[in-house]
């Protein structure tokens, strides 16, 4: 490849833009952030992902300066920003509710932050024009926020927070208020803008699809802790825990006891009277240790005949079919009562698909298709 891959987190000489060091945040007795350390690098599009109440919004509010950590430090370009008030930080935020000033026009909203910097008039004008162009809002400059659509308001909020050219832009559920179609378009727009301005973005979202689409790295959070930080592909293909595997996308979890059967190769005895499944794992498991095989539905093949040469194959009956248009998910019941989800792309027209309800089928997957997890 001619292009160098953007991966500053793999470079030991790279200095992080943001460094959380052993940050704890308590609200009374409630621990919102629990001794958390995290590095975010310049020009990253970093996603904080987790269910509501996991602490992701608190992380963002600490970066903006609206909350202060109970313990620990937060550094921006090597400088501790904990004592710096929000109006003195080179950090801007795009609010979930957009927080557009209703009494000001689109132009005045975008110019608001620039005017606070006592910038001279022509430079403000030029910067506002640039922002209007970037977000394709030129035609709406004189309108008030209530006179434009939800998608346009979202772009005004983005333009306003980008106008001051912050070192770091925080986005709090930026697309939550948009409908699905618009959200997908806007995701790509956000990525374009992030790339063209070179600003570091930190996005907070509970939508895993959104995080996967836009982010260079994703941090999956739960109960004030970061469970895993990795690129979207690694989060999906190599989750480090059942929690992450389950939170991101759809997954089958087969829980059982591991039994080493060769180098990096294990059998998982997961159910009485059912053949053990075979899986590879670079992480070692001792004999009899609890192991969870996490396997994505699309990694499981479904067929009417017994497949040849499959590492794992079992027979079952189709209980349910979820037809999603491009994909179909089959719920296959095994003789022991377990249900395994298998997914196939609908490359053929519906009339010619041959598997239907109650059909006896075979499901199969290779030893490398899943991930073996201790917890």
């Amino acid at each position, binding site marked *: 490849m001619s292009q160098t891959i953007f991966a500053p987190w793999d470079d030991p000489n790279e200095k992080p833009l943001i460094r959380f060091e052993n940050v704890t945040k308590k609200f009374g007795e409630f621990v919102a952030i629990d001794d958390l350390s995290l590095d975010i690098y310049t020009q990253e599009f970093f996603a904080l992902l987790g269910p509501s109440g996991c602490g992701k919004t608190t992380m963002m509010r600490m970066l903006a300066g609206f909350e202060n950590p109970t313990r620990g430090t937060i550094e921006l370009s090597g400088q501790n920003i904990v004592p710096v008030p*929000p109006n003195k930080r080179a*950090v801007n935020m795009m*609010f979930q509710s957009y927080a557009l000033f209703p009494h000001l026009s689109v132009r005045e909203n975008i110019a608001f*932050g620039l005017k*606070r910097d006592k910038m001279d008039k022509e430079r403000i004008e030029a910067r506002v024009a640039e922002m209007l162009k970037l977000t394709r809002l030129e035609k709406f400059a004189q309108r008030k926020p*209530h006179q434009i659509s*939800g998608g346009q308001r979202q772009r005004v909020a983005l333009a*306003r927070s980008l106008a*001051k050219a912050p070192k770091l832009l925080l986005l709090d559920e930026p697309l939550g208020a948009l409908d699905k179609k618009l959200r997908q378009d806007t995701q790509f727009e956000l990525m374009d803008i992030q790339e063209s301005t070179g600003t570091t973005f930190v996005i907070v979202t509970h939508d895993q699809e959104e995080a996967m689409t836009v982010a260079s790295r994703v941090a999956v959070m739960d109960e004030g802790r970061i469970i895993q930080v990795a690129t979207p592909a690694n989060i999906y293909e190599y989750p480090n825990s059942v929690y992450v595997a389950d939170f991101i996308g759809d997954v089958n979890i087969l829980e059982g006891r591991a039994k080493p059967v060769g180098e990096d190769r294990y059998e998982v005895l997961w159910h009485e009277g059912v053949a053990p499944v075979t899986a590879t794992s670079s992480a070692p498991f001792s004999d009899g240790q609890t192991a969870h095989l996490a396997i994505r539905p699309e990694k499981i093949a479904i067929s009417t005949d017994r497949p040849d040469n499959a590492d794992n194959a079992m027979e079952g009956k189709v209980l349910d079919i979820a037809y999603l248009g491009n994909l179909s998910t089959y719920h296959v019941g095994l003789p022991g009562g377990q249900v395994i989800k298998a997914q196939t792309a609908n490359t053929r027209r519906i009339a010619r698909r041959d598997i239907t309800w109650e059909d006896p089928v075979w499901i199969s997957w290779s030893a490398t298709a899943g991930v073996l997890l201790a917890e």
Partner: protein
Amino acid sequence: MRRLSWFNVTSLTLGFAFLYLPMLILVIYSFNASKLVTVWAGFSTRWYGELIQNEAFLGAAWVTLKVALMSSTLATLLGTMAAYVLVRGGRFLGRTLFSGMIYAPLVMPEVITGLSLLLLFIGIGLDRGVLTIVLAHTTFSMCYVSVVVSSRLVSFDRSLEEAALDLGCSAWDAFRLVTLPIIAPAVIAGWLLAFTLSLDDLVIASFTAGPSATTLPIKIFSAVRLGVSPEINALSTIMIAIVATGVITASLISKRASLRAQKEAQAAERASG
């Protein structure tokens, strides 16, 4: 439009008659040509003419107006500040106590408020006059302002202020440039309310007024003790008109503001939907 049943019509008539019949009679008799208050002798605006020539009444009216303007402005300032701290200050020590205490003067008997203020002014040796009435009126009307303003602040999106801070505003700039323009209708409504409250107050003013300054309600009350004159009817009619205008304007302003907010929300929904 739905037709009202006879029962509803009767209750409505009775209720409104109870409320407004005395005032209506007063207004009608203010246009009476006769010098005797209870005898109708034809329509005339004669008493309004005589009123304009009555120096004592005009002086009292001027004092009342001055007091109302100053006290309502002061009350608006203090009431808005109090509302802001109570709604926005977060959970500080004694917040519940303070917010309870700010509403207490609403239900406190005016006689007690007046008496305690009188004792205070005597205690600190302040001569009773315009200043003491202004202070007294500010005291009791600022809690009305604070009620009106805090109800607006409660429904105010907090993130607007955070956005202002985030974009480089100091706390004062955020209040001046973002919060105040948005809550302005409530502040104006609060001012008008305080203004009309001060205009028609008799009890507290009579405790705190001195020989150098008498307000119109006090003047009317003392004049009536010597017998009701048609002039007083004319004066009262004018006061009813002023107070009614103030109250109606205040309620129209707050209603228009909430209607506009509703329309904006609807327009936004349509646009995004």
